């Protein structure tokens, strides 16, 4: 009898191909991880990757096209774009991670209150989230930066707070579905205390999907932050923050495409890598542990 019981139903057999398809294609994942590894290196030890001093002027070689000497070309003051991109990684990533940290922390608080708070609290917080949602991220950032003046810090907060309400929603949903899940009821039936249930079931199950969100959010934050830099509301030159690089390069687009195109590609690459990883994590979580 038990043989039947253990046999995997054919439906499973039909599903596996789909499951495999849903997950990020291994190739893509490998590439993404590789890219992230590079970015990580640039983050902690830019010296290892850089070929020039990112700040050093070389007026003789101004606006040099990409070449074996200058992989990504040079800018109007003859600075090596590749090295600047490498050194810019730290600034960009720190902003991206910082903004993500800010937004997720805020989102957690709001989401938790909205889901677990009493009727009044939940209602109020939900409204607050609605109001925040009515502020497009960039508009919010514009206002905040106008108040605090442009700096990496204000960028972090502007983007962080700006993107918080969206995540707050997701988290609220997560917590609610955990709260109303069968396993929580089962725990209640076992006579566990609310605190224990919150600690053991609701929080972990609600927070777990955030791993994926974090990855996604870092990419998006960097894009938003760079948009601010682009509007001249970002970090100060000569900082090689990617958005700032792009903004500075835009003037030369017709003569020196690389100053605009390459930093843009780098930003996209990072966003893409982070997202791919995030999605992969999401899928693994969906499929459950093996």
């Amino acid at each position, binding site marked *: 009898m038990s043989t039947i019981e253990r046999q995997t139903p054919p439906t499973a057999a039909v*599903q596996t191909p789909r499951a495999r398809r849903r997950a990020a294609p291994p190739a893509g994942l490998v590439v993404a991880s590789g890219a992230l590894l590079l970015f990580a290196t640039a983050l902690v030890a830019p010296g290892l990757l850089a070929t020039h001093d990112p700040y050093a002027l070389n007026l003789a070689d101004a606006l040099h096209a990409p070449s074996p000497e200058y992989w990504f070309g040079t800018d109007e003051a003859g600075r090596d774009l590749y090295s600047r991109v490498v050194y810019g990684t730290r600034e960009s990533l720190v902003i991206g991670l910082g903004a993500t940290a800010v937004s997720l922390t805020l989102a957690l608080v709001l989401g938790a209150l909205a889901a677990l708070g009493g009727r009044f609290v939940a209602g109020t917080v939900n409204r607050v989230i609605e109001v925040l949602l009515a502020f497009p991220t960039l*508009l919010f950032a514009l206002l905040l930066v106008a108040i605090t003046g442009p700096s990496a810090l204000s960028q972090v907060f502007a983007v962080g707070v700006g993107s918080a309400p969206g995540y707050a929603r997701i988290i609220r949903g997560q917590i609610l579905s955990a709260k109303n899940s069968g396993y929580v009821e089962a725990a209640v039936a076992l006579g566990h205390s609310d605190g224990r249930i919150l600690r053991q079931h609701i929080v972990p199950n609600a927070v777990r999907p955030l791993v994926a969100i974090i990855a996604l959010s870092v990419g998006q934050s960097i894009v938003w932050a760079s948009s601010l830099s682009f509007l001249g509301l970002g970090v100060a030159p000569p900082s090689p923050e990617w958005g700032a690089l792009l903004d500075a390069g835009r003037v030369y687009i017709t003569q020196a495409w690389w100053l*605009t195109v390459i930093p843009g590609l780098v930003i996209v690459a990072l966003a*893409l890598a982070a997202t*791919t990883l995030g999605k992969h994590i999401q899928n693994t979580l969906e499929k459950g542990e093996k």
Partner: protein
Amino acid sequence: MTRTSSNSPPRPAPGTRPVVPTLRRSPTLTWPRLRRIVEKIGGAVVVLFGAATAAFAAQAALPGDRATVILNIRAGQAIERTPAELAQINEQYGLQNPLVVQYLDYIGGLLVGDLGTSYQQFKPVSEVILQQIGPTVALTLTAVALSWLIMIAWVTLTAGRTGRLAGAGAVVDTTAAGLPHYWLGIILLLVFSLGLGWFPVISGPSAIGIVLPALTLAIPLAGFMGQATRTEFERSLEQPFVISARMRGMGDTGVRLRHVLRHSVLPAITLSGWALGATISGAVVVETVFSRPGIGKVLVGAVNSQDLPVVTGIVILIAALYVVANLLVDLAYTLVDPRLKSA
């Protein structure tokens, strides 16, 4: 406003909803719809009020003496001002009053539809906005429409396929979603206007001129919505009703278009409400890159020169647009998924 309700517990939990003391099985038909409408309007008002307050708070938090700023803006000078000059301005805009009074005046003005007067243009903010809202709305709507077209075409084509095509589909979504507006805009401008000369360099408000700006906003949005739609699409493809459709002799294309698509766009519809905000954010950038008139440009200008009545006016306007958009989204949602009406 949006689909948060779908998160609420499936099994009716007593106490969370007002219990109507009626006899068993007494259906009150008008009541629920009425209540829903009231709730929505209430929500909308709260959002607008909140936005207005937030905007005012932002003003109050801005650095520098307001009157000085106003004078400096008008003359484009960054110097100290004489008390005489300041007094006159303070008088004109009631800046000498305590913040609370200013706030109340401001809210009071809003109630009668008065958004104040632009420091720079000497005309009512409502007028300033009305002049600029047209192009932006046109741009936003075109962008959202375009993104839907792109998204649906691409997802229907690639989702749920095996092998390379499926992989490509997802990667393209992700890439598109990650494209920064300003960058995409510049590239499009470089290639299609400067390079190929297919489109005017100065977009202006012309019909042809709207193509590139709209694309700039649409492509990332399409990618973003595509991600959500794709997942749902592939889930729906496995549903029994799809199988029974096949059992009826329906082909793959038929199944995708007639059945699966409708199910898979639901999350994207929800996103569209939020998307409006995103596209307006984008408009701020895109209008600069493509030299289009519009709210975005006015906003950046107003923030830079601290023309605060204009800034707050636009903030409220955008909040209002957001509210409207989400009401529409709810409507669209119930149209696509009629089950919600009865539930």
